[in-house]
């Protein structure tokens, strides 16, 4: 173990919140390292002296670790490998786990020898928007794009399926607290004591927030004592839930906040039955946004080198991780925060060369400690430039002129391998903005803070610009009590601990340092100061133009460290105050979130629930090949035991099934049809309004076919409805419209005609339905119903009978889709499989066969029955040849709009039958009907083929249904079907759409 430790040359011997007894192996770019439990990948790399971790997006400049949190713009790595590979992961937010594997990105062949470094040299030509100004001519953008795309992008995607699981969870609470820093903890204690249902979420493995990275004392004890005490109390409260490793990423309407819980990201892989991540949908009555603040860099030349980092990050590395981020440090600051860093670094044995403070006055209360630690402060000064290609080695310092526009004295260079920068703090107003709030600019902290309240989310602590620890603790407590009061709860007491912090001397804005060289504003997207001034020069001055033209803030860090600096520089260029420039809209998610948890468990075969009929298992065991019909699975056709699925066998099976029905008897599962139970005194009147034809005279025990229109007069759905009793009807709809028809009827009953006494209920699932069809169907039925007379007179066409089949109650409807004598038998679903099998057994004498949707489809085409492809929402009743069903004696839904001129146009395409002249050609549905197949585009289109049967086994040749313009039907009998996609043309004869048994003798027989 000591051997390991000796390799962590930057690790402190004591302190920090790491467990030195738990060493962890990991690799970076294939090299083996060791860190400790409690480390992040970033802190472990720094502990091992690794400074260069990546290459920048555009110029491929060497980059190191810049921050200690989710705002990291530089240190993006590819985490894990194989099917768990995750590109673009922030090293600063990865908890170290045994065997962790990370690789640097955006470099080739390796991190030191990246050949696209050439971009850095070419950078004068690659200023903002350069590609808008060129690559316009031949050979076209698509050619150049190929190369540019290869250079762009960061990490690699993967081609593997994710082996991990994801979960979702819905929770409710009175008060949601986002952020487990001092403000959030204080709020949670008060809210918890008040008895509110509280959820506290924090994206870190443990609570404490900023307190973990600082040397604060609360009531004279290190702050973690207070944190631990609070957590203990909260854990004991049944009404409080603490969710760590849970990142609230979006604040949506109705005070719904969404978060991702990282359940097992900190483990090598999830444990048994454990998911990787879980999406939380949190519905809160009130929300406390205690999301803290993010430190900003300052814009100066070469401010991007490995070894340059945020001052608070440097502090966090020594304090929380016991890692010295450098040996010799310069601090560059425009506010008090830099001093804290200087002191904490010095205390840990880092040589602090100087604090460069752009302010004229050094806070007096620091003097004592500065003297004690022998730290030099250089006031009114700035860092002008830095040196060291793969890592910082020296820093150039100069004095700033009064107006801040030039460097006054002779600058000088000091050697340093760490430059800690603080440009001030920006409150994390993201969630507040998601909730609909508009931030306002606050001069005293030089940052945007929440403006007026939006929804029920209140910001507190640093996230509303209160940077003093005492204020944070107090605000958390106060806001929680205000909310408790609003929720009619007793307010709670909490004694706010005493802190050891100094009063804060105001920041003096310093956005950029004068001078030449590359000054990075957005480190991830390589947006420099000159890009912003160029955007200004060219008129891209609104913040959104600025963002889009320069890509400022468009990286994976979403501009957390760069947005305000960029906007401030634009404001300076425009000589306008920052608040006038405004800020860009913060969009969810707050930090990038994986797609997996958004899909949860609905992946693969679980994508959209599968719906099965009661006979599904029988179909499965008896050779059915299934087809998706919406969410249903339906047998498409049945293969014999010996047959393998193939196109040939499919054709054979379908022909077999059709022939069986036409010559003997078949059985098809039609359970998927929508079924609606209609009851009430006004049912007939209601049907009269819903359907286009008349319903008042339908006798009990009879069924009738009907079509429904939409209000706009076009056909909506068709089906049969039967009268079971005086006030009791049973409706069937098409499979695809089942839900829509029910809603349609409920709408009219509840909203338009509440006076009608009618109830509708979906009974689709209650009844298993099967159609027994074919000339021998009556024979089979009579055997099933030995005591009932089923001859033509007793049970005529469109007759309905409620019977008992071997003890099973059944409804039998003598209706036909196939055109044969046919009975639709409905039985309660649990008896479906039993009755299905019984029918097949009884039917054996007549060589009965089950048939699928394909055979059914062919037979309905033979019979000229319309279905989905014809009822496509664009056809009128007349188009379908169903004008006879439009009653003129009553009003019905759609009757007022169906006579508009466009819908009465004589030239509208009308349903026809189509037969290839050669009686052989397979005409594809979707082929277009034209006069002459040799015409060059644009070709006048006369209609299209809507449904095709490649072979009608009954007629011995292919047939199709289609639509042909009315005027063409009158003048010609021949037409061409062309399918340029297949390079096919076929001459067709236009026929009546009913090919089979035009007088319908068979089904009436």
């Amino acid at each position: 173990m000591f051997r390991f430790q000796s390799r962590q040359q930057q690790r402190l011997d004591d302190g920090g919140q790491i467990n030195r007894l738990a060493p962890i192996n990991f690799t970076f770019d294939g090299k083996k390292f060791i860190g400790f439990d409690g480390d992040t990948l970033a802190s472990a790399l720094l502990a091992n002296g690794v400074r260069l971790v990546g290459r920048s997006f555009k110029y491929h400049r060497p980059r190191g670790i810049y921050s200690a949190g989710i705002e990291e713009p530089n240190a993006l790595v590819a985490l894990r490998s194989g099917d768990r590979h995750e590109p673009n992961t922030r090293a600063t937010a990865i908890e170290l786990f045994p065997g962790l594997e990370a690789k640097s990105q955006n470099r080739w062949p390796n991190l030191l020898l990246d050949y696209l470094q050439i971009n850095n040299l070419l950078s004068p030509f690659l200023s903002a928007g350069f590609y808008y100004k060129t690559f316009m001519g031949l050979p076209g953008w698509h050619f150049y794009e190929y190369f540019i795309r290869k250079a762009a992008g960061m990490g690699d995607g993967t081609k593997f399926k994710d082996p991990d699981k994801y979960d979702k969870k819905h929770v409710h609470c009175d008060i949601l607290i986002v952020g487990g820093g001092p403000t959030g903890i204080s709020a949670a204690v008060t809210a918890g004591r008040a008895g509110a249902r509280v959820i506290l979420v924090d994206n870190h493995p443990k609570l404490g927030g900023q307190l973990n990275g600082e040397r604060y004392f609360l009531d004279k004890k290190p702050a973690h004592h207070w944190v631990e005490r609070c957590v203990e109390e909260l854990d004991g409260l049944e009404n409080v839930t603490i969710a760590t490793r849970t990142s609230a990423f979006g604040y949506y309407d109705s005070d719904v906040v969404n978060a991702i819980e990282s359940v097992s990201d900190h483990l090598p892989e999830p444990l048994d039955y454990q998911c990787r991540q879980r999406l939380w949908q949190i519905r809160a009555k009130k929300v406390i946004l205690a999301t803290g603040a993010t430190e900003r860099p300052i814009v100066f030349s070469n401010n991007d080198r490995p070894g340059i980092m945020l001052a608070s990050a440097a502090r966090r590395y020594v304090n929380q991780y016991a890692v010295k981020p450098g040996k010799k440090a310069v601090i560059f600051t425009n506010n008090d925060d830099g001093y804290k860093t200087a002191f904490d670094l010095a205390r840990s044995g880092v040589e602090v060369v100087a604090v460069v403070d752009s302010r004229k006055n050094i806070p007096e209360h620091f003097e004592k400690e500065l003297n004690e630690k022998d730290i030099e402060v250089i006031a009114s000064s700035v860092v002008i430039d830095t040196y060291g290609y793969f890592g910082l080695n020296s820093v150039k310092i100069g004095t700033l002129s009064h107006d801040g526009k030039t460097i006054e004295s002779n600058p000088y260079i000091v050697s340093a391998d760490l430059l800690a920068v603080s440009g001030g703090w920006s409150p994390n107003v993201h969630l507040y903005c998601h909730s609909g709030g508009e931030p306002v600019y606050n001069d005293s902290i030089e940052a945007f803070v929440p403006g007026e309240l939006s929804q029920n989310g209140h910001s507190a602590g640093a996230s509303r610009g209160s940077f003093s620890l005492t204020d944070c603790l107090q605000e958390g407590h106060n806001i929680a009590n205000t909310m408790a009061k609003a929720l009619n709860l007793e307010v709670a007491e909490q004694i706010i601990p005493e802190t050891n912090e100094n009063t804060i001397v105001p920041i003096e804005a310093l956005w950029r340092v004068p001078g030449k060289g590359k000054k990075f504003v957005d480190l991830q997207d390589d947006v420099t100061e000159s890009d912003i001034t160029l955007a200004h020069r060219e008129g891209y001055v609104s913040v959104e133009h600025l963002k889009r033209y320069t890509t400022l803030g468009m990286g994976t860090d979403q501009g957390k460290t760069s947005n305000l600096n960029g906007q401030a520089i634009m404001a300076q260029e425009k000589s306008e105050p920052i608040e006038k420039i405004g800020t860009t809209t913060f969009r969810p998610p707050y930090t990038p979130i994986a797609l997996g948890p958004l899909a949860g468990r609905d992946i693969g075969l679980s994508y959209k629930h599968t719906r099965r009929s009661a006979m599904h298992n029988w179909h499965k065991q008896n050779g059915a090949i299934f087809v998706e019909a919406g969410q249903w699975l339906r047998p498409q056709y049945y293969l014999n035991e010996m047959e393998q699925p193939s196109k040939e066998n499919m054709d054979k099976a379908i022909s077999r099934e059709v022939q069986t029905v036409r010559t003997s008897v078949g059985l098809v599962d039609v359970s998927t049809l929508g079924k609606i139970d209609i009851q009430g005194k006004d049912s007939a009147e209601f049907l009269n309004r819903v359907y286009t034809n008349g319903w008042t005279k339908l006798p009990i025990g009879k069924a009738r076919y009907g079509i429904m229109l939409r209000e706009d007069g076009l056909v909506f759905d068709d089906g049969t409805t039967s009268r079971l009793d005086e006030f009791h009807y049973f409706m069937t709809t098409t499979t695809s419209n089942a839900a829509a028809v029910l809603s349609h009827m409920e709408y009219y009953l509840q909203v338009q005609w509440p006076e009608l006494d009618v109830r509708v209920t979906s009974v689709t699932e209650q009844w298993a339905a099967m159609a027994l069809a074919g000339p021998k169907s009556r024979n089979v039925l009579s055997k099933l119903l030995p005591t009932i007379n089923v001859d033509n007179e007793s049970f005529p066409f469109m007759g309905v009978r409620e019977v008992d089949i071997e003890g099973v109650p059944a409804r039998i409807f003598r209706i036909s889709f196939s055109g044969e004598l046919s009975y639709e038998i409905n039985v309660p679903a649990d008896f479906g499989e039993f009755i299905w099998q019984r029918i097949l057994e009884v039917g054996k004498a007549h060589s009965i066969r089950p048939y699928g949707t394909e055979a059914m489809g062919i037979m309905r085409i033979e019979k000229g029955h319309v279905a989905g492809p014809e009822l496509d929402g664009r056809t009128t009743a007349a188009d379908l040849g169903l004008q006879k069903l439009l009653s003129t004696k009553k009003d019905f839904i759609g009757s007022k709009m169906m006579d508009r001129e466009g819908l009465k146009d004589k030239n509208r395409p009308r349903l026809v039958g189509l037969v290839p002249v050669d009686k052989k050609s397979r005409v594809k549905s979707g082929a277009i009907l034209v006069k002459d197949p040799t015409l060059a585009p644009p070709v006048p289109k006369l209609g299209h083929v809507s449904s095709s049967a490649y072979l009608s086994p009954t007629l011995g040749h292919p047939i199709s249904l289609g639509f042909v313009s009315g005027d063409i039907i009158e003048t010609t009998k021949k037409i061409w079907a062309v399918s340029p996609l297949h390079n096919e043309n076929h001459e067709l004869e236009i026929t009546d759409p009913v090919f089979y048994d035009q007088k319908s003798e068979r089904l009436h027989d």
Partner: protein
Amino acid sequence: MTEVNTSKNSLRRQSGLAHVINYGQFGNVTLNGPSLFICERHPLTILQLDTNKSKTLTDISNLLNAEFPHTTNTCKGDDERRIIWLGPNRWLIVEPEHGCLQTLIKNEFNSSEVFLTDLSHGKSTVRLRGRKARDVLMKGSGIDWHLNSFGADYCAHTKLFDLAATVDCRDIDVFDIYIARGFAEDFWGTLMDAAAEFGYQVD
């Protein structure tokens, strides 16, 4: 084809879950045993009753010797017979299959006053029991499953794992879930998957 016994007595009512249920303990079952117990309730009589005549309802109530819940989202009854509020003037009566409930009411009341729809076969019923039952429900639906909001004799018609479901809280940690029969197999799979992390027993 399997052999079918046609004798009336052995008529099989086959549940929508008949082909998917595996009995035993599954998932993350620890030494403390499973946190969840899951079983199907079958066969049941499930009857939808619809009437806007309060007098009629009282009469039915007397006939059945059962109270109807008038508060939204509530149920009344016991294991023998459960009456669930469904919507305005609409209830669901659930009891172990007897086969006579519908006839009983039909014989007594006018068909223009009471509207009955048999849904016994249209729904599959799963009973979810155990201290983690609410955690499973939380994965599938956005309503507040907290005991204070959804205690015993509460019911909800909601979207559960993307399916229309009725959930009846029979007791503090006992829930009957009704879903459309056609989705039963899929729902079962989803439920088992969601329960796995807690460890469950299928009875």
